[in-house]
């Protein structure tokens, strides 16, 4: 799967995500206050309610850390996120860049409608996959991974 090509939205059933649920490793980073955990070689990072400079930089650091630790895919979960401003967009683009350089996939999960529209309008959706929620993201990453023979 090439990150540079437009992606279709992925959907998955709850049953498909159970495989990963048992491998969860809580990695909440208290210092940066960014919640994250890994499922296999996928890191799930939770964005905060308002993605701005402060929170964006924390997420960026966490994503870099996860990629340096060997993550092959990043799921950024926006379930708590109500608003993403310009700085947030810029930082997300930076994360996408770094992930691309590391050969890692990026999935945005549980993004609200308004933010989806913003991502689509700005073209971010050409570089990431959108998933309904974390489970769906993990499931589809697993499917993609198997399809690619990883």
């Amino acid at each position: 799967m090439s990150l540079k090509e437009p992606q279709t939205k992925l959907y998955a059933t709850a049953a498909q995500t159970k495989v990963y649920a048992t491998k969860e490793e809580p990695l909440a980073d208290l210092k940066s206050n960014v919640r994250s955990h890994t499922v296999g070689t996928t890191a799930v990072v939770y964005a905060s309610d308002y993605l701005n400079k402060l929170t964006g930089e924390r997420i960026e650091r966490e994503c870099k850390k996860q990629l340096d630790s060997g993550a092959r895919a990043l799921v950024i979960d926006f379930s708590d996120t109500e608003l993403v401003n310009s700085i947030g967009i810029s930082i997300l683009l930076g994360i996408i860049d770094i992930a691309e350089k590391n050969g890692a996939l990026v999935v945005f999960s549980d993004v609200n409608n308004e933010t989806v529209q913003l991502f689509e309008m700005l073209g971010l959706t050409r570089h990431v996959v959108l998933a309904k929620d974390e489970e769906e993201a993990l499931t589809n990453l697993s499917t993609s991974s198997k399809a690619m023979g990883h």
Partner: protein
Amino acid sequence: MEPNTQKLIHSFGALADLGQEVADTGDFMEMVRTSLHLLLGTLAIRRGAIIECPTHHLPEDKSTNLLAVWGVGEDYQPKFDVEDADRDLFLKAPDGALLVSALVQSPKSKVQSQNGTGSGSDRVEDVATTAPASSLIFFDRYASQLQQQGFDLIIPMVVRGELTGLVLLGGKASGDPFTADDLEVIKSMVRHIGVGIHTHRLLGEVKQQVVENRRLYEDLRAIYRDTVRAFAAAIDIKDKYTQGHSERVGKYSEIIARELGFGEEEIEGMAIAGYLHDVGKLVVERDIINAPYRIDAKQSSELNRHPAAGYEILSPIHHPYADIPLMAKYHHERMDGRGYPDGLTDEQIPLGAKIVTLADSFDAMTTDRPYKTRRTFDEVILDLRRNTGSQFDPIVVIAFCRALMKELTGETKKRRFAKMLGKNYLDATKDIPLLTQLLAELDPNTQTAAVGSGS
């Protein structure tokens, strides 16, 4: 929501944030970094850099300074030389943007502008060549490098006719070309950022100027103080019996002023007045000053010219402190009007002159003269008691006594009086009661405090 409306709201939000960011003078580098994020995030541009150009005040310095970069990698630290011709080119297109790819294909400047009606779907195209080929040094040198790094646009930041810097931008995440509307948003934001950088520069220059002025002022003050000291030494050398008199009067005056609660500037001014109070003696014959006997009336009249002469000498000088010449002129005036040169009374005499009067008299009483040895402390107290109100202002005498009391009781660790009077002159056991009594007579409110501090 319509995409165009959403885009507009997103851009307005970014502009509002940028305005706030630029107005914040706290952390300059953070301001630039955030501004770059705001610019990139507004149109989802994947990479960008903000580069500061050297000011034209420093023609020898051509190198740019990278302020912020995003999306290129932390290792990318570009440094460009901006020649005068390049600067002219950028200044000639203050509202334009330069397309890197066009410059690589054909080394001539392309100014981006709006094509057609200016609707959001219009694409930016190269429309004009505004600079002669000789002015393309920058692009000859760097266009390929910029393209390799993924930069598509160069936007000059021009503030008040000065090239403040350059903004380098990569392509949009959407992969679409920049539209004319995009370019308007970019230029508007770049202008904001340019103003922020320009303001920071101006503030930096002002701060530097303030520091430099303060240093110069301190140097001047030091030179002034040294000159005054040299002057005081010159005055005292003329009088072989009163060496160090001017300096001591300066120090006593300083002590009294401090006790009276003067500010630091005024205290320093009082010290200077003390140093210079006898400057008029330079015009008095040495024989009269050094006479080893009581001088006669004619000689006394000649000697009494020195306060007015001092005033004449000091008046043309622009002293950093007020009334120095007047303090020299009136340091022999008396409260009862029997002093000279003008026979002023009480409130006609400046407080500073009254301070110098007491400091001068105290030093005269406590140093050996050719015709008599110095007085004991008891005798000095007696003189003060007798002459306070007629010669000396009680306020000044009280302040002087309090300062001396503080040293004798150990309330202050400084031994300023002892240093000037010699260590055996003062005797706390004997002198504290004398001072306490005098203070009680002059100011009943002082008694308790003085005795209390002595116990």
